[in-house]
């Protein structure tokens, strides 16, 4: 049971990270991983075993779209971009994420919360 909970949390978080990354423009799979790593100050390493299933899952849910392009060295590249549904989803996910972090922060620092009002 605890194992499953952790998976769910991670999954949801990864989806949020991917959606947010694609907010700044279309990217291929490797690019998404690199961007997450760079923006998290090399802290978050997304391994391929989680990244690709997540990308395909989001594609299946139509939150991101995929398109084949040819790169400079004449290679077929699959490029993902955010859809309108994805944008909406991102807003929801962000709100939820902020609520969760607030809630967790509240639990971790109960004194602060009482003092606030």
């Amino acid at each position, binding site marked *: 049971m605890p194992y499953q909970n952790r998976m769910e949390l991670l999954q949801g978080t990864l989806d949020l990270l991917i959606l947010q990354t694609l907010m700044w423009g279309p990217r*291929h*799979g*490797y*690019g998404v*991983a690199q961007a997450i790593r760079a923006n998290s100050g090399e802290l978050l390493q997304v*391994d*391929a*075993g989680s990244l*690709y*299933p997540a*990308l*395909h*899952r989001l594609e*299946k849910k139509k939150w991101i779209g995929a398109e*084949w392009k040819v*790169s400079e060295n004449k*290679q*077929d*590249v*699959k490029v993902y971009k955010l859809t309108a549904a994805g944008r909406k989803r991102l807003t929801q996910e962000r709100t939820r994420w902020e609520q969760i972090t607030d809630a967790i922060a509240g639990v971790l620092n109960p004194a602060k919360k009482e003092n606030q009002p």
Partner: protein
Amino acid sequence: MKHWWNWRKQSDELEKEIQHHLQMAETERIERGASQNEAQTGARREFGNVGLVKELARDVWGWRWVEDLYEDLRFGMRMLGKSPGFTAVAILTLALGIGVNTAAFTAYKAFLDRSLDARDSSEMVNLALILHSGAADSYFSYPDYETYRDRLHSFSGLIADSGNEFLTLSDAGNSESRRSSADGSLAGKLGLLPSNISDKEFASTMVVSENYFSVLGVLPLRGRTFGEISELAASPTVLISENYWQKRFAGDPALLGKSIRLNGVALTVIGITPRNFVGTHLLVPDFWLPLSLSPLLHPAGGALRDRENLCCLVRGRLAPGVSIEQARAEMTVLAGQLSALHDPHSEWGKPATALIWPGSPFPLPPERLSGGLKYAVLLVMVAVGMVLVIACANVASLQLARAASRQNELRMRLSLGASRLRLVRQLLTESALLGMLAGVVALMLSWTFMKGLATVAAGAFPAQYGTLIFRVSPDPGIFAYVFTISLAAGILFGLAPALESSRSALSAALKANAGTSPMRSRRLRGTFIAAQVAVALALMIAGSMLIRSCIRALKVDTGYDIKRVVNLTVQFPEDPKYNAERESALVRELRTRLADLPDVAAVTSASPPVYGYRRAAVSLNGETPSAQNTRTVLCFSYVQASYFQTLGIPLLLGRNFQMQAGQPELSVILSESAAKKLWPDENPVGRSLRLGTDGQFHRKDEALPDGPTYQVIGVAGDTRGATFDGSDAELVYVPLADDRPQDYSILVRTWSDPERFPHEVRAVISSIDPDLTAESHTLSELVRMTATFFLPALAAVIATPVGLIGLFLALMGIYGTVSYIVVLRTREVGIRMALGAKKRDVVGLMLGEITRPVLAGLFVGMFLAAGASYLLRGALYGLNTVDGITFVSVSAMFLAIALFAAWLPSRQAARVDPVVALRYE
């Protein structure tokens, strides 16, 4: 297919995507100063397990099962290829089982469950009436048919046909092939066709309404079909079938427009019907004749205008958008109006309801067909179903044995992390694969068989009888049936071994020790063998009882001579010149002339005893037999004094009939059993009795013995008649007046060769009147055509090969299973031999393992067979329900063969070298 293509595309894209990822990672590392090699390994290490990533990503799209199936199939193919012996035996076994079932189903469909030979045959329906008594009658009179045809709006057309007739054919030119074709046909070889004693040629002619072809929607191959009735009366026409046109006229195109004579009436051939067109029948006739011309060809009978003369089957094409229910309602109303026109005392004068069902060549809907036919169909289906059961049990026991020898592989896969479900699925896929392959083989097998059967059917009758058409064209329903059976069989026989071996693999994985089969699977294997043996034994016993019954029916002492007595039936030309007096005179003259032949011992007029007799109630106190005073119901037969001599029946007591002033005396002769029944332990001669046929079946215008008091003048030896239980041995012989001998056959006792005798008779007949025709059979030939012989013979012909296939399959199963046991127990045998066991002990050990399930199977099989023979009792002639000799001998034979089949591979175990065996693993 689209699924498959999508899946392939998806796979390719994922591959490309991952390759791109790796390349990007590599490039970046090189840019950071790593060497080519370092970059490549680094990128791969960072990426992780490529295969796993692919699998996880594909899982997202739900393609997993396709991939697994593909893998399972590929792996299954490889496993099957690895043990070709097992694969061949399993496929062959299943193919035989499925093939027999397919053949039976195809035959059923081709013969019993067929539609009419028409365009859009689904619109065609059969019409009948359910009479006041509840009986269904599908024959209508011609005037009734006309009324329905003209007044019902639910149909776009109604057709009538009065069936097949044999008419004399003349003015048709010479036919060289005629005699030889009669002898070469299957029916001719079996002696089912009468020896035709005349130079006349006959042709089978289907008599149908004028609109027959237009309503069925069939165009002639050449020429045209019938025109209007008025036109037909002015110039009588006939159609010929393509089959007969080819056989009899060698496809001569000049036949169209020519005139031939049927029953002496000139008819112009105006068209040729398409090859194998059977219309509403099962046989292709030689000619098609319009119904309105029927009276022309039958001046004596054939009253088309008679509303009581039920002559015709009626079928119709439903008008567009009309349901069977609507048509039925409309027809019921009209039937009510028509009943007022019928004789109010007859069944047809009472209200009736219409019965309409999808068009079929059979006169009644399937659920109203005779019980015997349904029973026979059921019997065959049960028998072939049992063969499939044997085949499945056989393959299941083989699979189980093989799974036992695959324990190592399964254990390996379990410990590598395969789930139990995954293993079961793998084993099931293999089974289903076997089933499919077997289905393909079975389809080819049964197809060849059915084609052969269709060819035999087509040549079964000589040309003048028409051609039996047995359609075995490819049918999607049959394909579906075969594949469902083969798949279901595959899954069925794979299920138990799959569950069993995955379970034992799991438990065995915990124990290090292997090398003997686990107890559970041994018990399961025993059950499969016992099941096969039981079912095969039941089939064998049923088959051999039927064969014994046939032999008995032929060999049984009938009480009269069947080999030397010839049954002669005379037909007179359909001509008013032949009145009753002339016909009687001709028969009497023929009898006299036959009696004068040198090798003829006796001649008499009578019905041949093989067809059975009519029955009458008997009273002994001189009163008219009624419900109160009837002593018993006995069979009776009209015979002349010469009957007993002709058939070789001894007179045990009293005297024979005598004529008094040309009229028979009022006396009867009893058979021995009849005498015993009426007057046990007394001399019946001199006693008297009266007979009453009220309430018993008899035909119109038949002579009846009701009324007078008869004196018993003698007792004759018992004869055996046509009933299975022999009840018609109780017989009363009533003297026959010789005023209408043409109503009876002429029976001739001759010393001549039965083959040559017809030629002698032909000479006699043509010297008396060349226009007479006659058929002759010996009584033994007639016996072979009666239900007493024919039913068990037919059942035996079906049951015996089915039983043999069952036996063969069961033996293959035993052989295969013992072979596997030997392999499984090699190590154990090695230890035993090292400890001093003899070869004999080892063979005994192996046989011991198989003997118990075989014995159990034989025991259950005997019970099954007892049940089967109880069901078959109606078809068994002169046998007890449980025929001890058959039961014991067949079981003993089965046991011997089974042990032999087990002994062959057991010798292999005895040859095991202990040293080799102990090093085995």
